[in-house]
C-alpha cells in the first residue's frame, strides 16, 4: 500500500511538478493518468526512491520513502520511462544483470530470468541481442525484470508509450502476470481502463480525482461523446473540435450532420474538468 502525504516537488528552475499531493493506493493495479508534464514521472521517481521530494513524504507498505529508502528498494521495483535494454546485450543478460543488482546470485538470476522471459512470451528471443528486438519486445524485457524480481511493489512509468496497438495488448498481458502491487503511469486512457482497478488523475501537479474507473465514469452513464465542428450548448472546446455529451438514443440523429459519436472514456473526465488534452 502507498500513502502519500502533502508531497511537493519544486525543481531548481522553479517549476512546481507536484503541489502538495496526498492519496492512498492499495489496489492490485493502480494507474496514474495525466497529460505530458502533469507530474506523473516526478511522482513515480519520488515514490520509487529515485528522487527526493522538496517537502511532504510517502510510505510504501509502511516504510518511509525518505528515511527507509534502502528497505523500500528491497521490496519495490521501478521501471523508468523510456528505459531501453542495452543494445549489445542479449535480452536474458539484461534481466540477469538487473537481478544481480537486486542481489540475486548467478544461478538464481538465470533461472528467474528464463522463467520471466517465457512468461512474457520472449522464450524464443531471450538470446537475441537487444537491438534485434522490436519495440514491444524491448518493453517486455523490462516487464520480465519486474516479474523475475518477485517484488511486492512494481512501478511502471509509461510502459507502453510508443508501441503499436498489438504490442500494447501484449505488454498489458505481461503486466497482468505480475504478482505484486502495480502502479503504472499512462496517458492512454484505455490502458488505465483496461488494466487498473483505481485511477489517480493528476494535472499540473495536483490530484484531480481518485477513484475506481466505474465510479469515475458514473456521471457519464448512458451518455456518448459527440465531436462536432459546431459549437452547441454546454460543449467543450478541444482544439478546433467541440465536444458534448448526449444520451445514446439521441446520438443517432447527429451522425447525419457529420458529427462523430464515440463511447465515453477517461479522457472525458479531463475534458469535463477543463483540461486541454490537445497538447
Amino acid at each position, binding site marked *: 500500500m502507498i500513502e502519500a502525504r502533502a508531497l511537493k516537488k519544486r525543481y531548481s528552475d522553479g517549476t512546481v511538478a507536484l503541489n502538495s499531493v496526498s492519496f492512498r493506493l492499495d489496489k492490485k493495479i493502480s494507474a496514474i493518468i495525466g497529460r505530458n508534464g502533469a507530474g506523473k514521472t516526478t511522482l513515480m*521517481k519520488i515514490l*520509487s*526512491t*529515485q*528522487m*527526493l521530494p522538496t517537502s511532504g513524504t510517502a510510505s510504501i507498505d509502511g516504510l518511509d520513502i525518505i528515511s527507509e*529508502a*534502502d528497505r523500500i*528498494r*528491497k521490496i*519495490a*521495483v*521501478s*521501471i*523508468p*520511462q*523510456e*528505459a*531501453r*535494454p*542495452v543494445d*549489445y*546485450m542479449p535480452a536474458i*543478460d539484461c534481466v*540477469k*544483470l*538487473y537481478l*544481480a*543488482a*537486486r*542481489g*540475486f*546470485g*548467478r544461478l538464481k*538470476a538465470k533461472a528467474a530470468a528464463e522463467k520471466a522471459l517465457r512468461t512474457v512470451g520472449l522464450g524464443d528471443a531471450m538470446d537475441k*541481442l537487444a537491438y534485434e528486438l522490436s519495440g514491444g519486445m524491448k518493453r517486455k524485457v523490462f516487464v520480465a*525484470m519486474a516479474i523475475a524480481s518477485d517484488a511486492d511493489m512494481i*512501478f511502471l512509468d509509461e510502459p507502453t508509450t510508443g508501441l503499436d496497438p498489438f504490442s500494447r495488448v501484449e505488454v498489458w498481458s505481461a503486466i497482468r502476470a505480475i504478482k505484486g502491487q502495480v502502479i503504472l503511469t499512462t496517458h492512454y486512457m484505455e490502458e488505465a481502463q483496461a488494466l487498473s482497478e483505481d485511477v489517480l488523475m493528476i494535472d499540473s501537479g495536483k490530484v484531480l480525482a481518485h477513484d475506481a474507473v466505474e465510479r469515475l465514469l458514473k456521471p457519464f452513464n448512458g451518455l456518448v461523446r459527440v465531436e462536432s465542428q459546431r459549437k452547441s450548448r454546454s460543449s467543450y472546446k478541444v482544439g478546433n473540435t467541440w465536444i458534448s455529451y448526449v444520451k445514446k438514443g439521441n446520438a443517432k440523429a447527429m451522425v447525419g450532420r457529420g458529427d462523430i459519436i464515440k463511447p465515453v472514456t477517461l479522457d472525458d473526465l479531463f475534458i469535463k474538468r477543463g483540461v486541454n488534452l490537445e497538447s
Partner: protein
Amino acid sequence: MNPKFVSAHAWLTGGAALRSNWLYMITGMGFPLSLLFVVGVLSEGSLLPYALAGGLISIVATNGIFTMADLGMFKFEYMFKDLIVTTRTSPMDYMFGVMLADFFWSIPSIILYFVLDIIFHIFTPYAFVMTIIVASLVLLSTASLAFVLTSLVKHQRFVWAITGMLSLVMMIFPPTFYPYTYLPHPILLALSISPTTPAAVLEQGFFGLAPTLWYMFYILIAETVILFLLAKYLTVWRER
C-alpha cells in the same frame, strides 16, 4: 558492497559483450597504437621504449576516461542508472561494475603492449609487477573522475566534449610517450595534476629508462584517494 552486481556487470557488459562487439576493441587500441607509431617514426625508434612503457598507462587511462562514455550512455540513453538507483546497489558498486567492464575491453591492448615490451627487450618481472600496481591506481583515479563528472552533466553531448578534453590533458601533455626528463621540473610538477603524469614518470623508472622519482608514487596515491573520495561523496545518485 554488492559483489554479485559488480562481477555480473563487469562480465555481462564487458567480457561477454566483447564477443559480439570486437570492433570496439580495435577502436580502443587505435589511439595508443597510433601515438606509438608516430613517436617511433619521428624519433627514428629512439623513443620507442618510452612510448611502450607509457603506452600501457595510456591504454588504462583511456579505458578509465571512456568509462564516462559508457556511464553517460547508461544514464541518458538506456536509463540504466535510473533502474539501478532504485535497487540496493550502491553508487560505488555501479562505478566498479562499469570500470571493470571497460577494463575487459582493454585487456587485448594490454597483452599486445606487454608482448611488444618483450620484443623490444624492456620487459622485466619487476616492471611487470609495478606496472600492474600503477595501472590499477590510474584506472581507479580516472574512473572515479569520470563517475563524478557523469553524475553532474545533464546531457550526453557534454560527455563527449569532456572525454575529448580529458584525453588531451591526460594523454597528450603528460610524458606518457616521451621522456619526462625533457620537461623542466616545475612543468613536470604542474602536469602532475593528471594522474597519468606521475604514473608515466614511475613507469619510465620501473622499465629502467630514467631515474625513479619515488615521490611521484605518493602523488599518484594521493590523487587516487582524493578522486575516489570525490566519487563516493560528490556523486549525485538519488536526484534532488
